[in-house]
């Protein structure tokens, strides 16, 4: 609590200071030869050059608060309410806000690069918003699993919304492809920590979905993004499972999460409906694999126990089941 209060204070102070600093910057006349207002005559006044201000810090703070709120809602929807509808609504809202409105920037996936540079280059500093966006989903992953992936991340959200007829990917193939995201993570960090002139942010450069959010982009990127979305209709969320470098970090942290989706063995019916319903291969041998679970709440919808009308009878058991 204290840390967040301090963080908020720092953010508010930054906002105030930056506004003041901008107000003090005035134009000087470095060149004497330009004609003066008296020379020009007739009450002429030199117009000021309009300098639109960048996005205000207050709005950036708002984004951070919304991110935290959305992840909190994702955790609640996924673990407490267990509402698939809720997750879908959250996914739509976040796709619209973080995706189409904010055009996908600032994002935690790209922030990997900024943080990597900040840790290796003493002259490089990141902003508070980037720090918040990078660390908050990781902390929440340690606590509640991959709630960021569950409807908050705009990439995940649009892929989530196009899942039509998902097929189960064979386990070995799934594992092998899943290693690709760690390779991508390594490459991204490698290119990011190069000296400034050679540095390249490859995650941003090869971002498949940002072209849709911006409604513009190089043709090859839009084609790749489109191809991933089409693929996503049949293989659930291929980017998230096999390519997302941040997902790699979240996966490893979610392994130790405090709360998360659990399928208790001695209470289940062995019906396997949850495993069939999971498009992401996150249920193996009827156990939830927290590294792969993307908090989509489909398994609850499929579980006959969850749909049992007499919730109060099963409440003690189901509380145990998902605690």
């Amino acid at each position: 609590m204290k840390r967040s209060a301090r963080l908020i204070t720092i953010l508010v102070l930054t906002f105030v200071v930056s506004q003041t600093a901008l107000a003090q910057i005035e134009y000087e006349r470095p060149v004497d030869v330009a004609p003066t207002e008296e020379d020009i005559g007739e009450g002429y006044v030199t117009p000021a050059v309009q300098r639109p201000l960048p996005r205000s810090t207050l709005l950036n703070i708002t984004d951070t608060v919304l991110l935290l709120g959305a992840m909190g809602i994702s955790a609640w929807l996924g673990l407490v309410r267990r509402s698939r509808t809720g997750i879908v609504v959250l996914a739509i809202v976040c796709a619209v806000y973080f995706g189409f409105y904010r055009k996908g920037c600032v994002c935690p996936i790209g922030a990997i690069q900024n943080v990597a540079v900040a840790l290796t280059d003493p002259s490089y500093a990141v902003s508070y918003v980037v720090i918040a966006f990078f660390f908050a989903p990781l902390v929440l992953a340690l606590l509640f699993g991959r709630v960021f992936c569950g409807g908050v991340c705009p990439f995940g959200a649009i892929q989530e919304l196009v899942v039509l007829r998902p097929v189960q990917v064979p386990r070995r193939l799934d594992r092998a492809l899943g290693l690709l995201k760690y390779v991508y993570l390594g490459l991204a960090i490698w290119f990011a920590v190069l000296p400034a002139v050679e540095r390249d942010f490859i995650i941003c450069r090869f971002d498949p979905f940002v072209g849709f959010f911006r409604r513009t982009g190089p043709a090859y990127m839009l084609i790749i993004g489109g191809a991933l979305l089409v693929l996503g209709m049949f293989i659930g969320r291929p980017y998230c499972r096999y390519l997302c470098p941040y997902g790699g970090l979240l996966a490893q942290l979610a392994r130790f999460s405090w709360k998360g989706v659990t399928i208790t063995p001695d209470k289940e019916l062995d019906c396997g409906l949850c495993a069939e319903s999971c498009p992401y291969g996150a249920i193996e041998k009827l156990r939830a694999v927290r590294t792969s679970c993307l908090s989509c709440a489909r398994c609850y919808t499929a579980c006959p126990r969850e749909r049992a009308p007499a919730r109060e009878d099963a409440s003690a058991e189901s509380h145990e089941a998902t605690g």
Partner: protein
Amino acid sequence: MNHETTRRELLGHAVRGAGLLGLGGVAVYLTAKADDEGVWVLDTSKCVNSRLGATGIEACELCATSCVRPLSAVRAINDFEKCGRCYICPAYFDVTSAVDENGLPSAKLCPRDAIKREPIGWVDPDDPANNFYEYTIDEALCNGCGICVLACKDPSGLGSIRLEVRYDLCLDCNRCSNAAACPDDAIDRKPLSRAGAPQRHPAS
């Protein structure tokens, strides 16, 4: 709960605690040296269209074509504090073109005709050459190609026109494609508090 569960739970708590501490530690370290929001800034002392000494060259038009937006977020602006308000402006007119019957160059320089020319102040009814003219760049038309910037540069002009990243248009990409394309590394990320002051040319 049996002992196995308790030990596993304890181990889990320990790992989580360590993880939180680790993440928190790195976050605190980064926050300590954090800077305010960065914005992309075009440094006129590096941009070849603006920097003194680079004359007799073709304008570098990369800012117009590299931005992810269809119409670049980099636009030319005329700093009115520095503009000479000349009758024959080398950025408005193509001064190498033939002279028409009014004594003015026949061709304009801007390929998109984005510069507007208006007499200002007291206007001489007899001699248009006796007037001062305001040159305003229509930002809706400008694509940031930099041809006018080069033409205005000292010594042919006073260097009042410069290329600038317009923050109401810039998407603030983490990887600016203009910055990546610029051969002079003129576009860089600067913290907001240090990005506001206009860049000055070195004293001439």
